[in-house]
């Protein structure tokens, strides 16, 4: 006798279809949620980066900061200028936020101050403040921006960093990729890439509101770099150096973005 050997699917009832589709969807939903939670935990528990030029951030987060820097550096141009304001808008009392490298230096004597420039491939320069004041003066009134989130319109005067480099013929050799600046006692230090160094609004400032800098604002000479957060605007510059790799940077060692560009 022949028997029909055939598998026949019983059509699903509507209720079964609903159940099945719900089951699949919620299963997928839970699986993906689980993956997301696992990914989040991985990110939170990821070890800190190895301390070096930068430190203090989770390793994947630091990688992300560095990649994001590369992306946004594509938009950087020396034609992009920070907005400037009329003199009346400038704050009369300029905010003091940090005194690292100043309050911790008891041996500092402003009368003996000289800017030490460690030039690439030539002997070091020691420049006094009168020499710097003799260079063409540039003033800027702009909105100073702190990484903490506050901003203040401030009035600074000094020499354009690019004019300074040209004058001392540092620029005419091929300038290394980075400049490092440090306070005389070395307690505070920053690194800047060439683009920001040569930006036309970057100043070595010796005046605020038309008066000489106060000690708390970095007398006799400080950096004003409007394309960076305040953390890069080093006060009381002691040593200027150049390198092709990132110089050490105080706040980049505390988990902040090295670039910190605006």
């Amino acid at each position: 006798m022949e028997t029909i050997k055939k598998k026949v699917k019983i059509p699903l009832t509507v209720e079964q279809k609903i159940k099945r589709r719900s089951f699949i969807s919620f299963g997928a939903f839970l699986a993906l949620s689980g993956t997301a939670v696992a990914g989040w935990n991985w990110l939170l528990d990821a070890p800190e980066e190895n301390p070096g030029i930068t430190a203090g951030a989770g390793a994947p987060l630091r990688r992300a900061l560095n990649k994001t820097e590369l992306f946004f550096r594509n938009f950087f141009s020396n034609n992009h200028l920070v907005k400037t304001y009329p003199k009346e808008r400038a704050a009369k009392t300029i905010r003091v936020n940090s005194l690292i490298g100043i309050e911790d230096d008891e041996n500092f004597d402003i009368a003996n101050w000289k800017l030490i420039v460690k030039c690439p491939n030539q002997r070091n320069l020691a420049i006094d403040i009168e020499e710097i004041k003799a260079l063409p003066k540039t003033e800027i009134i702009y909105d100073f921006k702190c990484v903490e989130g506050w901003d203040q319109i401030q009035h600074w005067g000094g020499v354009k960093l690019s004019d300074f480099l040209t004058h001392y013929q540092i620029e005419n050799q091929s300038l290394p990729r980075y400049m490092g600046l440090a306070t005389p006692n070395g307690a505070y230090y920053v690194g800047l890439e060439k683009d920001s160094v040569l930006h036309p609004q970057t100043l070595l400032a010796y005046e605020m509101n038309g008066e000489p800098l106060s000690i708390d604002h970095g007398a006799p000479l400080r950096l004003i770099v409007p394309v960076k957060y305040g953390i890069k605007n080093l006060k009381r510059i002691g040593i200027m150096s150049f390198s092709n790799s990132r110089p050490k940077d105080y706040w980049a060692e505390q988990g902040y973005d090295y670039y910190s560009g605006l």
Partner: protein
Amino acid sequence: MLMRWTHWINFPVLGVMIWSGFLIYWANDAYGISIFGFTIIKFFPEWFYNYFHIPQRLAEGMAFHFLFMWFFFLNGLLYIMYTIFSGAWRELLPNKHTFKEAWQVLLHDLHIRKTTPPQKKYNAAQRIAYTAIILMGFGSIITGLAIYKPVQFYWMTWLCGGYHFARILHFALTIGYVLFFIIHLLQVVLAGWNNFRAIVAGFEVIEEKPIPMPEPVITTEKTEHNDGNN
């Protein structure tokens, strides 16, 4: 399908953005609401910061914020592209009847009005809310870029009324998300299980009213005998 995905991806991503935003905001928590010099709300009270372990984490907050901004942006872009190319925008964008109908929806939801307002996939109030939230997302990206790169994207900063004001807008939008989220969640709870399943699974069960039949027909489905090997 893609709309549901992007919706659900947005939920944790925006959550991380808001959390890391708090870590950043703490470093300069200047905002509050005051009327005639009386402070009504101060963003944020000390207990709030301490409860969520917010203080002294600015660097960490920035690192998270500048990573997850990419996911927020790409996910939002995907959603907008999809709604444009699939034609789903027709169900989402408000039209000329929407504002009148949305008022009816509001009265209905508040139990002031009995009649149910007209509705397709989304009702008029939903159209407004879901379009507004996309515009808010767009606003967050513009104001965010305005305070992230105020020199390179100076025209965006100008568009947002300057650096200082852009930061206030960026913050206000975040408060907007939180308010949206509270109402959104409430509405989902009120709409019930069937609706929630639809947000996850993408289908909705519509109960059909039994149609009275003239004479009952009994059908039996024959299934063939199966003594198969498998």
